[in-house]
């Protein structure tokens, strides 16, 4: 499993990188890669999200924060520095043609990584995402083209949470959010965080989603 950390990068540049990488892949190659990134502030809306999920649109406009539609599942979320984006490029044909299982894998990796970092994270039966108590700490939204994956998951690590008040996370006005920083009371070293997630993902994809 290759790993590429794009660092702090605009959302659309990271999406372009994913698309270019996907188009360059050959059928059946072993080019699975975990792409990681952080983004400057931006609101992203999935394919079936509408403007009603961004009640604080004016707040974003006043601060010059873009609200953009994205070709992925999931609804609305907010990205900013300190939030870890996981964008795996995985050939599901070579493992299992099961998108639900793939999202399970993402959530399992996030849950285990956060626990390793000391955060009491858990999945909740019947819901998507990863939670700490009743607060959501990680969000999933994927796209699959020709069984190659795009987009993935966002995990709140050190990012500020105030701007989440201006959206309905995942389209649900009742969802409260948290971060690893808020749960632990300290800033985490993002390089250590990324190492943990990369190692866990490489292990979990073979355990939970079938090896090559």
């Amino acid at each position, binding site marked *: 499993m290759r790993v590429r950390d794009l660092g702090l990068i605009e959302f659309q540049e990271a999406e372009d990188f994913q698309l270019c990488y996907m188009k360059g892949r050959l059928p059946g190659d072993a080019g699975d890669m975990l792409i990681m990134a952080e983004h400057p502030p931006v609101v992203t809306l999935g394919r079936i999200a509408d403007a009603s999920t961004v009640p604080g649109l004016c707040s974003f406009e006043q601060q010059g924060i873009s609200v953009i539609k994205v070709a992925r599942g999931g609804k609305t979320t907010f990205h900013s520095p300190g939030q870890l984006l996981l964008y795996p490029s995985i050939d599901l044909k070579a493992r299992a043609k099961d998108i*639900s299982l793939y999202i399970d894998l993402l959530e399992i990796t996030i849950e285990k990584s956060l626990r390793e970092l000391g955060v009491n994270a858990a999945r909740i039966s019947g819901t998507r995402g990863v939670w700490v108590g009743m607060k959501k700490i990680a969000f999933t939204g994927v796209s699959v083209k020709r069984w190659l994956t795009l987009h993935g998951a966002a995990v709140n690590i050190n990012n500020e949470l105030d701007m989440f008040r201006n959206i309905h996370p995942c389209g649900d006005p009742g969802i409260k959010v948290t971060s690893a920083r808020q749960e632990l009371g300290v800033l985490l070293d993002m390089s250590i965080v990324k190492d943990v997630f990369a190692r866990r993902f490489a292990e979990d994809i073979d355990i939970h989603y079938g090896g090559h």
Partner: protein
Amino acid sequence: MCNIGKDSPFRDEVKVSLGQLAAEPGEAVVTSWYFSEGDSVPGGADLLEVVTDKASFDVAAPCAGRLTKIMATIGTKIKHSDVVAIICPFQEAGPDRGECR
């Protein structure tokens, strides 16, 4: 629907559904069609895009043929067993005219 006669280039119709995909449970929404009724469709080409709660994905044509009927227009909520389209496969194999899978 395929109007099969002895000289017809078509064989029996093929129903397209999401059942060929293992995907997120529950309903999906049709968000795009990449072909129109009457179009010739290569086998394996992306036919339509659907979105579930957490995933968007393309549904491929199971075989080459003519897209004779779209059963679920954009915005329609569908279950995995619903038929979303009818394809009349081309009789002859050849480039982009592979057998139905």
